[in-house]
């Protein structure tokens, strides 16, 4: 099929479908439109991926359209700022609006650059976005019904919701395909718009507040983009990214890259810009799933991945790694005393993005590969985790993980999927850990002597990461003592499809790590990056270490099987817990206590609130984060 058409499909199909949803506010029509566009999206991105890279310049009418919509967008942001009397939004939108007007109408822009440049990296990104994104949107079909029912909303606002969801998917495709800085900037602003609209979707006070926060933080990134436009215009006379990247490494290029990576930090919620992603939690779950796993935050990653080859051992590259490492550690420690399930996931996302930044910043072929691996595995696992969290939340009506205690009995199927997803986040031989493993090896073998600091942050953060996941896992797997059996669970079809798709992906990618490396990651590495990663069926060899994959999977299967057989054979009576002998005979959940009364067993000890207090740490980490970001610009001077 025609590749141009495919590109148009990937960007246009979701956008048009979104428009369709907006106009036809009808349940069945929505379902048909969304499903069709999802199939179309996945199909076209698959075909694109098989086709390989190329470049393409669309009609110049589109350029005018982009300009028009961009200005509309900025005006809208300005209007939002006025409406909510937020000085930051007003200022930041004006800071973009005026320079863009100046750029377009006085300087008349820069002509003649291929607008779409599609290489393996964009194709990989497109694949992730289309698969994970579509699954989440399909999931949203059912979720939003439940959600509105839960909130007792009379008039459905789902048309708006799905419009922005699908628009986000389209914009993300545009973002990863664009080569023209201006276009990139346009799609970038659309994702900002979508995230703002989606976060404030519920219209509650907190939702609007968090939406505004997300808006101004992302607008900072937008301002940085406008700055790059000017740098591109004045110094390189080009706004085509590939051309700028090919230029000789000079301070100006470095400045250009630094500003771009600054924009990436805002989008990927690195410290100190973490709070918008944290605030995005108030939105309906599909939103958080979409923002966290495959779209919004990946935009920042994509940007840095693209500019990474040009960074090439500069101090800037090291600072990016430092920002990532710092974010990784801080978010892991902050997550320790988070009680809200989606909050933990958010910190986990921020942390893992930090890890990816770290890998890109180290900028060796090996670390680049590990960044890609982490990106792929993280998108799928995190997407699944959010989807599961949404299912559970709609059934348990609580976001606190303490209230999710014993979920494995109440919702066995969802829990098992969720537990697998969690295990895939931090245990070998799943992909995420494999990525981390490659990261440590890459980091150790990097040329920086000062990478010791980063290694330190990484190992400390990695320890803290497993702590909060284990804690959560243990809450899920509590089997209540009352001896009741597992309950059966009914899951609607759209949930089944979306959960099972991602679950299957995790298992397939987990078992077939070697194939993932061979098919997706190694071809995507920039052309001058040579690695001696050797992904065979038994192990994954990096040249300085090897990760046993298949044997380990077999061992795990054997462990579970033998453990299960043993426990079946030996059996055992379930006994009430040890309570210093004060158990009540017929009720295992209480004990005799003072004044001849009884008291319930209450256990809640794993949040470390007295030790790692969130508020103090948050302020501290923001200050430190800002200092490190300043360091980044300082690094450019060197």
């Amino acid at each position, binding site marked *: 099929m025609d590749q141009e058409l495919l590109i148009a499909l990937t960007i246009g199909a979701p956008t048009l479908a979104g428009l369709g949803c907006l106009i036809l506010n009808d349940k069945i029509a929505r379902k048909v439109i969304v499903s069709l566009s999802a199939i179309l999206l996945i199909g076209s991105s698959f075909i694109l991926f098989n086709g390989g890279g190329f470049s393409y310049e669309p009609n110049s009418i589109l350029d005018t359209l982009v300009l028009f919509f961009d200005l509309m967008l900025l005006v809208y942001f300005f209007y939002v700022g006025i409406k909510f009397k937020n000085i930051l939004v007003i200022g930041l939108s004006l800071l973009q609006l005026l320079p863009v007007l100046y750029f377009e109408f006085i300087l008349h822009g820069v002509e003649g650059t291929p607008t779409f440049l599609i290489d393996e990296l964009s194709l990989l990104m497109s694949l992730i976005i289309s698969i994970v994104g579509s699954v989440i949107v399909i999931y949203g079909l059912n979720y939003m019904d439940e959600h509105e029912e839960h909130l007792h909303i009379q008039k459905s606002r789902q048309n708006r919701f799905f419009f922005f969801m699908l628009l986000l998917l389209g914009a993300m495709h545009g973002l990863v395909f664009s080569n023209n800085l201006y276009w990139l900037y346009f799609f970038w602003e659309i994702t900002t718009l979508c995230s703002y609209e989606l976060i404030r979707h519920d219209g509650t006070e907190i939702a609007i507040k968090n939406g505004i926060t997300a808006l101004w933080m992302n607008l900072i990134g937008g301002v940085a983009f406008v700055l790059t436009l000017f740098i591109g215009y004045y110094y390189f006379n080009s706004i085509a990214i590939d051309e700028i990247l090919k230029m000789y490494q000079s301070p100006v290029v470095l400045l250009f890259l630094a500003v771009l990576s600054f924009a990436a930090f805002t989008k990927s919620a690195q410290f100190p810009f973490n709070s918008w992603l944290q605030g995005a939690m108030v939105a309906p779950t599909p939103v958080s799933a979409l923002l966290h796993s495959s779209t919004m935050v990946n935009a920042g990653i994509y940007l840095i991945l693209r500019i990474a080859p040009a960074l090439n051992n500069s101090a800037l590259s090291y600072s990016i790694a430092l920002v990532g490492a710092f974010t990784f550690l801080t978010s892991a420690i902050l997550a320790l005393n988070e009680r809200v399930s989606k909050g933990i996931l958010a910190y986990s996302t921020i942390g893992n993005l930090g890890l990816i930044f770290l890998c890109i910043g180290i900028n060796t072929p090996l670390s680049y590969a590990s960044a890609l691996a982490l990106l792929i595995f993280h998108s799928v696992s995190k997407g699944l985790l959010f989807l599961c969290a949404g299912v559970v939340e709609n059934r348990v009506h609580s976001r606190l993980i303490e209230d999710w205690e014993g979920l494995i009995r109440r919702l066995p199927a969802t829990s098992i999927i969720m537990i697998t997803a969690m295990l895939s986040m931090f245990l070998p031989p799943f992909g995420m850990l494999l990525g981390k493993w490659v990261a440590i090896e890459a980091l150790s073998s990097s040329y920086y002597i000062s990478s010791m600091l980063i290694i330190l942050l990484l190992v400390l953060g990695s320890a803290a990461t497993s702590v909060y996941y284990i804690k959560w896992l243990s809450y899920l797997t509590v089997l209540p003592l009352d001896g009741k059996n597992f309950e059966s669970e009914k899951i609607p079809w759209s949930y089944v499809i979306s959960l099972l798709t991602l679950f299957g992906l995790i298992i397939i990618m987990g078992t077939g790590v070697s194939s993932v490396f061979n098919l997706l990651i190694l071809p995507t590495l920039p052309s001058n990056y040579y690695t001696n990663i050797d992904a065979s069926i038994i192990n994954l060899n990096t040249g300085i270490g090897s990760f046993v994959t298949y044997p380990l999977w077999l061992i795990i299967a054997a462990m579970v099987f033998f453990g299960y057989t043993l426990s079946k054979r030996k059996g055992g009576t379930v006994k009430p817990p040890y309570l210093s*002998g004060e158990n009540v005979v017929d009720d295992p959940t209480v004990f005799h206590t003072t004044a001849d009364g009884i008291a319930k067993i209450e256990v809640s000890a794993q949040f470390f609130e007295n030790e790692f207090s969130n508020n103090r740490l948050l302020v501290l980490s923001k200050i430190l984060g800002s200092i490190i970001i300043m360091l980044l610009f300082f690094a450019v001077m060197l």
Partner: protein
Amino acid sequence: MKTMTKARLKSPWVLHFDCGSCNGCDIEILAALTPKFDAERFGIVNIGDPKQADMLLVTGPSNKRNQRVLKNLYEQMPEPKVVVAIGECACTGAIFHNCPNTNGGIDKIIPVDVYVPGCAARPEQIVDGIVLALQKLAEKSEKEAD
């Protein structure tokens, strides 16, 4: 002798519960673990957790309140298990025969396998009592195997 029985004989983990004694026997149980008598020679460990214990050492005559605790602890111990009543008051109530709140011996609450006399029982007597209890444990173990 079967391996299992031998292992059981060699590794009696004890749980000590003070059921209202005067402390005399309790400190002698602890003294039996300390260097002079060193009950760990026989693998005796004061484990403190009924779920892991093989032998329940009870001191004191038991009263209206702690009898439920005693029963609980006994039920939480997995088979095969033995109970040793240590000291006169755990056996019969002895000096507390006049005291209104005592039950007069723990064998009114749970089955007792070995009685150890003495007020307070000496560490030697306690070690003897445990050795005697081990024989009972061996009997139980053999019976279980049949």
